[in-house]
């Protein structure tokens, strides 16, 4: 099976063709917004990071920003730095450019302030937009596709309808040579034995237990129950009783394949097939990590109704129940609630999701794109100093 995508210089294939204006640090965010406002069709990705971060966080922020720039959905990147921040904007730009992609850098303190940087940035962004507009989609195999699978605002139906159906779609994509990244380590707690059984080898098996233990210990070292943050109040109201119940439903999204590799947050996979990435249960942070790892499309199941999207990728929303689907139709792409009512099988909805993924890869806009949802959040490990 094939789809129409944008082949990039590094042979990776995008399903979108964005020009992004990326700040290396929070202080450059408004300049990025101003450039994007003046060049319609470009996207600014403001964020609150990039400075006063300890080395492990500075490294994670850099890795994420580089990964977002290198994501094949992005045609060209303008990186705006301030000049005195921890996360070095010129390093980020050159790492992105290593992929052969058009990437440029402006540093506010060197250019001489906000208005001058906006003026120069607008000129560069216009050139980038003109370049991107000349690129054409071409026919490529489905093995170029990385689908991130995510759940947010889960309810007790998530594990009975949308997640197992997404699991069917995951298996179908892997059969075509594609890649699935399953994440949200917090929501593997209590289900890690199921994942570990499917590890391709002993070192992957060990790493699965390691990332789950690390996440559980991180909460416990603060002397707190994870249950204070996850499951969320809406999860409980939707019928989820414990973290284990949420986790057992959550891991079904990846399907039944062997787990080939375990990635750190925002790391790009070296393998194909089913991959695990260590991200938190926080949806925007998790999706941002997936995209920095090269995911082109996200399939996102929700029971309570989460409308979030992403600045650079289509996010396909799958409702776990028909009450939600009819209530929030404008945010939902697929209704898996028909499984609960018995009108459709898990297999049927799974195939429907798979075909929707291909349609979206070909250019069909998702509801989150149509509504302009651009949520973006980089996971951080420690506090600011």
């Amino acid at each position: 099976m094939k789809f129409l995508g944008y082949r990039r210089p590094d042979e990776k294939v995008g399903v979108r063709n964005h020009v992004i204006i990326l700040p290396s640090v929070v202080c450059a965010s408004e300049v990025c917004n101003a450039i994007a406002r003046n060049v319609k069709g470009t996207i600014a990705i403001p964020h609150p990071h990039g400075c006063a971060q300890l080395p492990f966080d500075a490294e994670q922020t850099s890795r994420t920003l580089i990964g977002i720039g290198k994501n094949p959905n992005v045609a060209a990147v303008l990186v705006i730095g301030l000049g005195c921040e921890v996360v070095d904007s010129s390093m980020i730009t050159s790492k992105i450019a290593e992929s052969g992609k058009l990437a440029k850098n402006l540093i506010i303190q060197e250019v001489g302030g906000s208005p001058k940087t906006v003026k120069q940035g607008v000129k560069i962004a216009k050139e980038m937009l003109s370049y991107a507009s000349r690129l054409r989609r071409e026919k490529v195999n489905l093995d170029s596709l990385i689908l991130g699978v995510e759940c947010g605002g889960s309810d007790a139906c998530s594990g009975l309808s949308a997640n197992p159906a997404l699991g069917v779609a995951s298996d179908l994509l892997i059969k075509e040579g594609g890649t699935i990244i399953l994440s949200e380590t917090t929501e593997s707690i209590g289900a890690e034995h199921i994942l570990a059984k499917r590890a391709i080898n002993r070192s992957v098996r060990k790493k699965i237990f390691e990332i789950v233990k690390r996440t559980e210990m991180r909460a416990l070292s603060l002397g707190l129950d994870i249950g204070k943050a996850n499951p969320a109040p809406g999860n409980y109201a939707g019928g989820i009783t414990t973290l284990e119940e949420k986790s057992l439903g959550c891991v079904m999204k990846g399907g039944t394949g062997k787990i080939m590799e375990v990635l750190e947050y925002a790391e790009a996979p070296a393998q194909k097939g089913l991959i695990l990435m260590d991200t938190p249960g926080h949806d925007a942070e998790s999706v941002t990590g997936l995209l920095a790892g090269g995911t082109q499309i996200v399939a996102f199941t929700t029971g309570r109704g989460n409308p979030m999207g992403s600045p650079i990728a289509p996010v396909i929303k799958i409702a776990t129940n028909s009450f939600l689907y009819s209530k929030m139709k404008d945010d939902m792409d697929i209704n898996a609630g028909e499984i609960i009512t018995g009108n459709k099988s898990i297999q049927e909805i799974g195939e429907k999701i798979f075909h929707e993924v291909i349609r979206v890869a070909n250019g069909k806009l998702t509801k989150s794109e149509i509504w302009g949802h651009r949520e973006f959040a980089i996971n951080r490990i420690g506090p600011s100093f």
Partner: protein
Amino acid sequence: MKSEDVDRMVILSHPKDNVATAKFPIKAETLLTFSDGKKIEVREEIRFGHKIALRKIPKDSPVIKYGERIGRAIRTIEPGELVHIHNVEGERGKSKSKNIG
């Protein structure tokens, strides 16, 4: 008292499960009937997506969904009762958890 076929009203995700998930809001006193003739009286209103005990779950024994342990009964739960945070406790990610990793 209204009698309903159990498969119409709830989803049992695995044969080992001792709880099932409500497909619709279920009124108290509804009689859920099984194919073998067994009946369970619903003891309280069960909201859509919430769980109902299909068997007696003694205090401290596991609550099973998806064929897996999702927590521990903190008191004995009778068949037909709502199974949720008032009578079940998760065992993972707890500050007093003995059961890590």
